[in-house]
């Protein structure tokens, strides 16, 4: 109720009422409220009585006395400053979000000589003792990051120029007592990839340069073929074209002091039509890899003089799929199996392709097939006893006859969340099954016979790495960077360790 003539109010109550009236009546609420609040604070501090207009309101609401503190210029300025500050915060905040930051946590654990090796979210490889689950801090590679100094584009680069995220996505590769790993870090859109090799026993770097750095993203696992380390990348540095490469690195050569070690280490690189996010599959002396441009390449790895100046001549054949390919190809019995972003899944025959009679999108009707699934395929397929198990980002799990591509389950299986990594076969009490990691949370145990879900490993975190099944236990590296072990029998959690610091999970 507005104060009227003859109505006496105590100063503070009067002031409150005055403010309320101003809020109701004035257009500039922010400034008005601020002004009234300040007046009230001032009176409280200095114990002074309110000014005259607060004590005597002898005129009706709407008259001049009721808007004493409403100074349009001041209020408008305050509103302008408020709007500008809010706008600034709202517009700058997204720059600090994770859209540009590689998160990692996709590396699967590898068990070798009683230790787990896993690429963590800090761009390092962690070594964890399999028996005790304790983190090996003495292994010297623990301190080696794939990128020693992340690129910086200054203050405006990304959230104050601070490198945000340095991660290993690919599962480490162990060959002849040496561990190879690759990852990348980004500041804004400027990315720096790194590959390193360490002695498995000591963790000491094998290469003099310690890390081979290339200005790109390295996502997929490394592969070794014919003594050559092969991996895929996105576009390199500021080059506009091409959008991806396959790099071949000599793991043995070492440059003399003063010679560019990277120049010596890199044997060749093959340009592709898209980012190469998946690990190459190697069979014989040929690397097969897919690109986000939708092509599957077969590239000769031979150290031949004829390729010296023309690496593009290494291309043996190329297949054009209907969508982007990020799933690592699976090679089984002379066939290549892979899915794409159009929801298609393919089986290509290596012999038919190598003959040169097929190109582009054509399929050999007698030895090749294509089938449809519900969503994009990112995970590598799993082949078991003549059956292919294919999982999708929509959570679908399919069983196809390896020879014909015919679906074997009446209805596809389904898990909650996207499936990014290849499932692992596991023996469950109810029968043979596969452990399917879910990008939303948990690992699902899916029956091989019907696609029925037998149970779940409750990881309480997204899982984007392949579960490792070993001697009755299932080991899972979560996207959050925890290595958890579960009993394959009752699916209960047995241990958990953080792959970044080594501390036990809470």
């Amino acid at each position, binding site marked *: 109720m507005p104060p009227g003539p003859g109505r006496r109010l105590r100063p503070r109550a009067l002031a409150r009422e005055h403010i309320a009236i101003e809020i109701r*009546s*004035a*257009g*500039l609420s922010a400034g008005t409220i601020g002004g009234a609040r300040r007046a009230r604070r001032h009176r409280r501090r200095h114990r002074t009585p309110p000014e005259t207009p607060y004590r005597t309101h002898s005129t009706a609401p709407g*008259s*001049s006395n*009721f*808007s*004493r503190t*409403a*100074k*349009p*210029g*001041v209020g*408008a*300025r305050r*509103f*302008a400053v408020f*709007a*500008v500050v809010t*706008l*600034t915060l*709202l*517009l*700058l905040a*997204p720059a600090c979000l994770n*859209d*540009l*930051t*590689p*998160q990692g946590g*996709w590396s699967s654990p590898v068990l070798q000589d009683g230790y787990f090796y896993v690429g963590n979210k800090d761009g390092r490889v962690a070594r964890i003792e399999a028996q005790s689950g304790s983190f090996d801090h003495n292994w010297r590679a623990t301190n080696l990051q794939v990128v020693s100094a992340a690129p910086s*584009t*200054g203050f*405006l680069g990304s959230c104050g120029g601070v490198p945000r995220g340095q991660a290993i*996505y690919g599962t480490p590769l162990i060959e002849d007592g040496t561990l190879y790993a690759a990852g990348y870090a*980004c500041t*804004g*859109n*400027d990315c720096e990839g790194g590959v390193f090799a360490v002695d498995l026993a000591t963790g000491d770097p094998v290469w003099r340069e310690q890390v081979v750095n290339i200005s790109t993203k390295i*996502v997929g696992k490394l592969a070794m073929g014919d003594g050559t380390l092969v991996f895929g990348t996105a576009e390199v540095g500021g080059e*506009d074209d091409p959008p991806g490469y396959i790099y071949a690195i000599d793991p043995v050569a070492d440059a003399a002091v003063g010679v560019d070690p990277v120049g010596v280490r890199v044997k060749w690189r093959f340009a592709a039509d*898209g*980012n190469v*996010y998946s690990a190459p599959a190697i069979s014989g002396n040929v690397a097969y890899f897919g690109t*986000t441009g939708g092509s599957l390449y077969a590239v000769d790895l031979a150290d031949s003089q004829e390729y010296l100046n023309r690496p593009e001549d290494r291309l043996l054949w190329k297949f054009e799929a*209907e*969508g*982007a390919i*990020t799933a690592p190809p699976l090679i089984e019995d002379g066939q290549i199996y892979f899915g794409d*972003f*159009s*929801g298609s899944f393919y089986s290509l025959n290596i012999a038919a392709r190598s003959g040169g009679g097929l190109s582009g999108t054509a399929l050999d009707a007698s030895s090749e097939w294509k089938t449809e699934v519900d*969503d*994009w395929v990112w995970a590598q397929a799993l082949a078991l006893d003549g059956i292919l198990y294919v999982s999708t*980002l*929509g959570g679908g799990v399919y069983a196809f006859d390896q020879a014909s591509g015919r679906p074997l389950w009446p209805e596809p299986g389904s898990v909650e969340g*996207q499936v*990014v990594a290849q499932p692992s076969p596991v023996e469950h009490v109810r029968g043979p099954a596969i452990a399917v990691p879910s990008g939303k949370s948990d690992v699902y145990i899916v029956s091989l016979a019907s696609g029925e879900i037998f149970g779940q490993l409750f990881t309480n975190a997204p899982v*984007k790495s392949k579960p490792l099944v070993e001697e009755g236990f299932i080991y899972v590296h979560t996207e959050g960077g925890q290595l958890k072990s579960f009993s394959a029998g009752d699916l209960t959690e047995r241990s958990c360790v953080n792959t970044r610091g080594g501390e036990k999970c809470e």
Partner: protein
Amino acid sequence: MEFLGILWDEVFMRPMINSLTLLYDLLFDNFGLSIIVFTVLMRLLLIPLQVRQTRQTMKMQELQPRMKALQDKYKGKSREERQQLSAETMRLYREAGVNPVGCLGPLVIQMPIWIALYRAILRAVPPTPEGLANLSEAFYWWNPARAIVPLNSDFAGMDLVDFVQNAPVPLNFALPVLVGGSMWVQQKMMTPETSDPRQAQTNQIMLWMMPVMFGFFTLQFPAGLGIYILFSNLIGVAIQYFIGGRKPITIFGRQFPSQGDGQAAIEPHRTIEPYEEKTDDAKPDIRRKDRRRGHRSRSGHAGRSSRRRRNNRR
């Protein structure tokens, strides 16, 4: 919080991502074109808001003579007089239904769009593997563009997902300048003239501060968002020009478009009413006067002379 996240995704992000990608599919796989067409569509949706805003601006300008009269009346520097002036000014605004900082309205309304678009661009052309994998969840099942991911984000020599500051010279400088300049023109067209020095000062601050800030921010934005803001401003200027009565805008002393450009500037019909002091029991009825003015304007200057006679009688 999870609910808010879902709400944000379903109301802003998914429709935006699907619109952008669908347009990409329809417009020859060109992400730049899809952003520009998306901008046009968004501005068309916001036209009612801008029309309303323009009307407010024009009302504000109509109030100027009365504002001036008020200032003349309370031109003393005493606290009492300044307070009286403020109160009377506020009452004038209130009665006319004018918000003196209302020119920020379209800007404020567009803020969620900008923020959502910032995220939508980065999600539609994700720079990380996680982002690419998560993009499948953002697509509607019927969107044919889901099969053509990843999108090519190159446009006019820029990567639309990369920050403007990383664009090649001179685009990295040109885009912020164009964004700031176009915003300044738009702000200038939308800011009402005022005789209140305080309000004029505020308007002046806003006129310069926002464009300068946005020009600076654009360096930090993905180039695609810079393109959106630039075209949004340009379309806004065009819309403002037409719904604002095709008034020429004066920039650094020159009129655009000039009178000789083939398009004669049309002065909107309005009459300036001298300030009449009102008592509490005789409040001005702005709506009634507006109607009367509108009627008289159609009959030329007759209304002005009769009003003069009436004022003389008083």
